[in-house]
């Protein structure tokens, strides 16, 4: 029961808080939700089926998923967030761009 109460509290009383690697921890209302970050867009000359799958079809994970958020009212960077779609718990946040991620790691 306490686990359920804690989950309800974490999702209703507290907002989702995203630790932006550049700006620090902020309310999710500063961010705009992008969508599924696992989508790989095919080459321009790929088949119709591949493009249909990439644009229109989603795994729609119930559990932890990689997704993009745009820090619209902050640094305006696109972030990749690993978040549970059941509890909204966030495991990790990193820049979407792999080179930026490398720079962040070098700095550490």
């Amino acid at each position, binding site marked *: 029961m306490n686990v359920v109460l804690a989950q309800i509290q974490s999702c*209703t009383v507290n907002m989702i808080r995203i630790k932006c690697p550049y700006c620090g921890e902020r309310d999710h209302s500063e961010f705009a939700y992008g969508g599924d970050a696992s989508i790989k867009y095919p080459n321009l000359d790929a088949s119709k089926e591949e493009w249909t799958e990439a644009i229109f079809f989603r795994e729609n994970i119930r559990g932890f998923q990689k997704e993009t958020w745009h820090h619209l009212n902050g640094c305006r960077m696109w972030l990749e967030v690993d978040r549970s779609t059941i509890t909204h718990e966030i495991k990790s946040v990193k820049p979407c761009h792999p080179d930026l991620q490398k720079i962040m790691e070098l700095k550490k």
Partner: protein
Amino acid sequence: MTKFNAWNVFKNGLNGQTGWSRQWRDPEPKENYDVIIIGGGLHGLATAYYLAKNHNIHNIAVLEKGWIGGGNAGRNTTIVRSNYMLPGNHEFYEHSLKLWENLSHELNYNVMFSQRAHVSLFHSPGAKDVNARRYNTMRLNGTDGELWDLDKLKKNIPHLNYNDARFPIMGAAVQPRAGNARHDSAVWGYARAADSLGVDIIQNCEVTGVTRQNGDIETIQTSRGNIKGKKVGFAVAGNTSRLWQMAGLGNLPIESHKLQAFVTESIKPFLDHVVVYGVGGAHFYISQSDKGSLVFGGDLDWYKSYAQRGNLPIVQDVAEAAMAILPSIGRLRLLRHWAGVMDMSMDGTFFICKTPISNLYLNAGWNYGGFKASPASGWYFADLIANEHPHKYIQNHHLERFEQGINLDERGAGPDPKLHG
């Protein structure tokens, strides 16, 4: 089942209300069914009802993981309308509205359908033109629709904010035959009527797996044992993708998002219509229930989620929209507030279709608009399951429409599920 009629009400008034029977049975699941419908919401129960009534198939099970009325059937804002424009959609929703008009008689259950008019405000000449086009298209197809100028609107709803609204109200697009119904009554009515035609409604029965043999679905594994069905229908909006993956079918053009709704304390009669306000990023719809509470809602929570609870920024957005057009409700307190999980499809339109599995049928992707659609959804889904061929109204409501480039995008919002409000 005891029928509801004046004589039975009178008789039970004299014998201390002891003559009523259960609304529906609580059967143990059998081993075999002709049709298994997964999902005991409005759509699943309506499907079972019309399968039994229109197609004479009675060996049907409806599997519900919780209890009847505990999912999205109990989490909506009860608005019924048919102001759709695209071919297929408008005929479908108009049929649904016509079924609503006779539903209380049909089910012998008062669904409290109230055709109080759906009043959609507009705030600019451009919006007026867009509404005129949509409502004229509806009229050409036999659906009712009107444009109200400011004078008529003020006469009908005098207490909107006509004085200092940030977006001054110019008039409204109105569908007089639209309105609301009582959500619990609708789902209980369908459950009771389906049960009386022999349908087994099996509650607390969560599907845990799907077994296939030679490509077809053979057995549904549930928390109450294995059940075999010759044909299987999915009607589990919110969790369609999970079932789809259990059946080994991969991805769907659907994302699950949550939508909040709100109820205030009861007040005296205040609002006679369903009022919709949407401009400048706001989205707000409100009506007054028969108990006197104001029932209203707004946008999705803007991120994918299976949690049946809402976030705070949307509470603020909806409250701001409420104050923008109905400042007089500012001192009311909220009594209840909840969220339901929506199947948001990639073009904002639903799916009633056959699937890659020959004995599996799909009913999904209802976005915000599943409640009003439920009678027609059951009607045409039952027709598809019984006759193996989609009715012409739903011939394009299949999963291949994206590849074929015939998306049914009423809003023109593009392939982003959260934008199809």
